[in-house]
């Protein structure tokens, strides 16, 4: 099976600073990783994904880093804005495809200080 852990339940950052949110997984066969953002009272929203054949992937103000050696991935948010305030969680797929094989982390609540 797969277990997914997150290092910090809450992360507080200053507006304009960079944020780093971490996730650890247990199954070395996991091959697909996704980050979601969940704003208060809303459903999770896809942010960025990465496959195991990559180490890094960039989007708009977000970067995901994957370290397969230590089974760790991180989400970096550049120049954090008030609208980034949300719960962020990772999902890991070790089933080879299909959302039925996803294991979700518990989430980190990102708080933006003015």
């Amino acid at each position, binding site marked *: 099976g797969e277990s997914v852990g997150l290092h910090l339940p809450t992360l507080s950052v200053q507006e304009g600073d960079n944020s780093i949110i971490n996730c650890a997984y247990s199954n070395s066969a996991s091959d697909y990783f996704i980050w979601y953002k969940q704003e208060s009272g809303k459903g*999770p929203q896809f942010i960025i994904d990465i496959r195991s054949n990559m180490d890094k992937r960039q989007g708009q103000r977000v970067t995901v880093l994957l370290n397969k050696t230590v089974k760790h991935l991180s989400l970096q948010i550049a120049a954090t804005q008030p609208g980034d305030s949300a719960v962020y969680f990772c999902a890991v797929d070790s089933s080879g495809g299909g959302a039925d094989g996803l294991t979700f982390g518990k989430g980190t609540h990102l708080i933006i200080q003015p």
Partner: protein
Amino acid sequence: NAGVTQTPKFRILKIGQSMTLQCTQDMNHNYMYWYRQDPGMGLKLIYYSVGAGITDKGEVPNGYNVSRSTTEDFPLRLELAAPSQTSVYFCASTFNEKLFFGSGTQLSVL
């Protein structure tokens, strides 16, 4: 496109009551899912469907039932509600492995 639409947004049930959580999507996705989200916990898969007429159990199916008569609709049925079913329920569909979630139903069983 409205995406994935869930109703109701909030509901309070008494122990032993039954209800159906509605979910519909207008993206013509074949794969649909029901998750529950408990405070401080990761999403847990209840049931999923790979197409009309086909459903399968997820990690936590006990106390729930589903049906999939059309591509668009995937209702979740709670029979004999119990306090352990107090949670936020999310319906989702997938395209290219990306999950699209509804806005959720917050259910309390008292």
